[in-house]
């Protein structure tokens, strides 16, 4: 039984590896212009969107700077969410699900813009006190002994 589980795990890992190494036939920057139902259908477009998201998330790699890496990987993650939400609006019917999709597009589009701006600043160097003003939120430190 243990061998079968190991074999199954190996096969799953290989499938995942192959999926991640698919040719770049679709990226976030090259989405189809169509905004209504296409011949591909929801499943096809969703699959393509998720593949593109995974590829774009892995693309930057790790630099050793968690802030930079987080932003670099979270941007395509959000772009993938926006694409999924867009497809939900084109193909879906449930009004409440559509509302969720609308909110995802609205909020995550703004967050993508914010992350891109911050990432550009961080890639130019550390900026712990934006505008030379003490940070108000999100500080990290060591509690005094």
């Amino acid at each position: 039984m243990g061998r079968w589980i190991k074999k199954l795990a190996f096969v799953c890992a290989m499938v995942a590896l192959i999926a991640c190494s698919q040719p770049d036939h679709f990226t976030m920057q090259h989405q189809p212009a169509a905004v209504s139902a296409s011949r591909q259908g929801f499943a096809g477009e969703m699959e393509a969107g998720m593949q593109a998201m995974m590829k774009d998330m892995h693309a930057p790699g790790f630099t050793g700077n968690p802030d930079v890496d987080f932003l670099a990987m979270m941007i395509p993650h959000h772009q993938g969410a926006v694409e999924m939400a867009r497809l939900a609006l084109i193909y879906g019917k449930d009004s409440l699900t559509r509302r969720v999709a609308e909110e995802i597009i609205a909020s995550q589009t703004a967050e993508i813009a914010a992350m891109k701006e911050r990432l550009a600043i961080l890639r130019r160097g550390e900026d712990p006190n934006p505008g030379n003003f003490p940070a108000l939120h999100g500080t990290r430190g060591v509690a005094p002994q």
Partner: protein
Amino acid sequence: MDWTRREFVANMGALAIGAALPLGRALAQSASGANGRDRVLLCNEDSNTLSVIDPNTNTVAGTINLTSFDEDPRPPFRLVTGGVTPSHAGMIAKPLYHGAINIHGAAPAPDNKLLACTGRGTSNVYLIDLETMSVIGNTPNPQASNQTNAERITTGVLVGREPHEPTFSRNGKELWITVRGENRIAVLDTAAAIDESRGGASRAVRQYVDCINGPAQVWFSGDGTLAFVISQKASQLEVMDTHFGADGFSRPKRRMLIDIKTQDPFGFTPFQKTVPDGTELWLSHKLADAVSAWSVGAEPKALEAISLGKLARPNHVEFVENTRGKAVYASLARVDDGGPGGIAASHIAIIDRSAAPGSRKVVGTFFSHGREAHGLWTNPENSLLYIAHEQDELPNTPNAGQTACTAFDVSDPFKPQFIAQIPLGDLVVPSGKLRNKKSINLVYVRPGARSQTA
């Protein structure tokens, strides 16, 4: 009619008046019927701004700022900090924010010199000078520098929780605001409201008038003697005698309650307006997917209820009447497939009002060229129509991510011709850009000329 969303699209396709011009064409098409000083104002509920459109060029002439961003030069309190712009939902939660929250309703004064708009979340009303397109009551910013706005936003007039729509009395001396969260109407002295907005000693609220549960909007009869109150919580239409005295101020009293369960079993009627000759009152019943017409008089009578199709979700109604016909337009919130350029869009329903009461029906629809159509208003000549939209344009469309207003030539009320889709763009403040978002009410104004509230 009891159609599904897709059936509605298919069935109305034959009647639909399609796009006369391709999407994304040059926006500065000549707009016949616009006067040089005309402006279209849109209430942007998520960005807390008012977009001002010049109908002569169909471009954004400016954005009126009702936020308090960039009054404070310190980075954490500005709109953009270290490159990070907050989401629209999060921006009003920034520390020290004291600007508007959820700018929603709007109405012009009878002389089109003043606009009132409500802040649902801020529980207040702001007044806009339509001749200068400025917020009445803003004061010089005590922290002003080259990194800040020059002005500090006024608080306007606080009226109570969840104010929905403002309406000026026919003589312009009062401003009635339905306070939806308190089941009453705030009746303001317009002159005192201007003074209070400026920080003066006046108290603008003359009185609170108790009314039906969940009041959505007040509209007055043409002679101003009757006030009609609709609700988003009760299937009722309330009629008040206004009793305006020689001093120009009202002493309102309930006259009657009308059960409108037949027309609106859900009790959700957000908008109403009288026709240009004042003889009829039209109500939009959003959850009932219908509009209804009523005779205007001491005892209004139901003339008809008109179904707009399943999930239509009508928001506002507008009347376009000229030498070529009399039409009622209803903006639909529903977003339909198969819009211009393959882009999903809302519809505007067209009802022929020249038919005898009781026999009127939807005679056509046209795509609004935007998503979730809401406010709509015509110019004084009834030759142009402008439409506000709640939802941004989708990714991969010409104005992706933008809230858009659209313009139509309605010289023939039954054959509207698309003129332009106008992206509302951004409010630019010293620290960055705030994208205008989620338009609700829309008003077409010609400063100094009689408005629809006259």
